[in-house]
């Protein structure tokens, strides 16, 4: 089975096939053998070269494709807010987006939508054009007006939630098309606050 997996803007082809108890995974033409056992939603993953994880008594502790014969990882998964899959590797969260011809998992679909949305934006890249409230809260300040030119990461709106004032910043440079909220308003999560063009 082959998947296209996007990570940090790079798409890579990953092929998976079964090999006895284990799996052989190919990334960009390099193969590794992987053993997976699940324990209450977490995976214990051993990764090594394709001739199998080291058994004591074998010599040659060579390193193939970046993994020693016996590299051990703990892996867990959670769905990301943007439709991506967040893979926790040894407690470090790594977001990836998976695509497979014929596979329509929710994350894959959402990822396609996301990519589709950004596609028409040309030079401004994949960043979305709307700034939404990431959580319910109260609008403390609106810092921009329609037609104002904004730089990437420029603060646009201040929302108070969880006792803190939080600046929402422009995901990219652009021009303010609309401001949809007023200071003092209470907003729900995902309310569109500002639209750029």
């Amino acid at each position, binding site marked *: 089975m082959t998947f296209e997996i996007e990570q940090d803007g790079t798409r890579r082809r990953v092929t998976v096939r079964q090999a006895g108890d284990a799996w052989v995974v190919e990334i960009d033409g390099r193969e590794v053998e992987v053993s997976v056992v699940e324990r209450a939603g977490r*995976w214990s993953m051993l990764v090594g070269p394709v001739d199998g994880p080291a058994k004591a008594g074998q010599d040659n502790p060579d390193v193939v494709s970046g993994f020693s014969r016996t590299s051990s990882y703990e892996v867990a998964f959670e769905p990301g807010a943007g439709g991506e899959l967040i893979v926790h590797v040894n407690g470090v969260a790594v977001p990836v987006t998976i695509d497979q011809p014929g596979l329509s998992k929710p994350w894959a679909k959402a990822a396609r939508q996301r990519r589709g949305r950004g596609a028409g934006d040309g030079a401004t890249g994949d960043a979305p054009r709307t700034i939404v409230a990431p959580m319910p809260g109260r609008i403390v300040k609106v810092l921009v007006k329609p037609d104002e030119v904004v730089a990437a990461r420029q603060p646009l709106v201040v929302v108070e939630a969880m006792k803190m004032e939080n600046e929402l910043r422009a995901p990219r440079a652009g021009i303010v098309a609309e401001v949809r909220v007023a200071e003092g308003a209470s907003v729900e999560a995902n309310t569109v606050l500002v639209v750029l063009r």
Partner: protein
Amino acid sequence: MRKILIANRGEIAVRIIRACRDLQIATVAVYSDCDRAARHVRMADEAVAIGGNPPSDSYLRIDRIVDAANATGAHGVHPGYGFLAENEEFAAACRDAGLTFIGPRPEAIALMGSKTAARAAAMAAGVDVVPGTETPLTADAGEDEIARIADRIGYPVMVKAVAGGGGKGMRVVGSRDELSGAVRAARSEAGAAFGDSAIYLERRLSRPRHIEVQVLADHHGTVLPFVERECSIQRRHQKVVEESPSAIVSVDLRTRLTAAAASVAASVGYTNAGTMEFLLDAAGRFYFLEMNTRLQVEHPVTEMVTGVDLVEWQIRIARGEPLTIDPAQSLTPRGHAIECRVYAEDPDSGFLPSPGRITDVRPPSGPGIRDDSGVEAGDEVPVYYDALISKLVAWGSSRQQAVSRMRRAVAEYDVRGIRTTVPFFRWLLDQPVFRDAAFDTEFLDTLLQQRRGKSFSEPESSLREVALIAAALHASRATASRPRGLAESAWTQQAKREILQ
């Protein structure tokens, strides 16, 4: 005092329940609608609903909390920190209802709650304060008068709310022409936040350290200061990491700092737990800043290096026991402790709040680690309250060992379902400035600005590769679970082996 109501929620409510358990005191939790099944409710012996989700409808409702204490037959009330902890009306309402308020007298809260009155008290006790106004500048104070005072103090000058806290109603003014605008802004913010637009001016020290001294004071005249806490690691005036002792405080400086703190507390007849905050300049001079008339979030670092359970002593003091702790114990740090405040915030989105359900959490443990957490897997972090989910504390025989253990602990800490500041701490603990303890109250903001929003979760390339592999296997399994999946057999084999084991 056989039953205590805890007028708070989250990790501090859990912390106080544990102290009550240790003293074999029954506990009553209070909760807002969204906290019905929160951890503090599950842990307490009793739980009483006190209203809706906004704090103003529940955790700030003095009337309902006092009623809840009466209805459950509680003898004492512990306010925790935040919410009503520094509200003299609440302390008075408890007293009037015949309840023991576990904290200072209402008069002490009122006195030290006014920044200018607290400054005056410090000066009267012979302790330096940051040079500035000695009386509140109410709305009556003219622009010219304020400008003259600012000139005398010298620029840059801080404009601060008399009733302030948490960075609200605070402005830094670089020169005279910025002054009147800053005063107006500070007044309006302070008026909105605290219902009091009075301000005062203070000299802005150049990159000071924020050092604070915990005190306990009983009802028999004993005031006991503790080894200092280093609280300079702040993001936008909010502490994120605290330590004890401070790497740069000498024994001599400690003696003077703690004596100053004790004399301020004694001069106002303070009782129970409180904290004196000081600014320490590069020349080693310290200035009283303000007093917090309650338990601090960072109290565990003091507990770890002195062996004193501060919450337990709050309760014992409140029930009239004399302080019997040897000053040598409270003033001689044993080893070093560090606390990381783990927040439900996404450090990769400018620390935006990240409320929601924690689907899984693996708290760290082992030698030197204490996790004072308010949540477990399955728990909800509501949007209505402070985002602190855990105080993670590491102790080591040296600062270096404490840092090593904290690094190990934040590496073990894994939370799914919401974002937390754990990745930020993994980064921070490796920064040379942090390692060298060469910080001041502004270093972190400077450091963060230099990163320009770069992700804290940048995994090394091998972990990124592993994530790709895992994701592909995860997807192949999802496919395999449908009948037509080719890869099904290996997963099924695995499952069978699991069952046979």
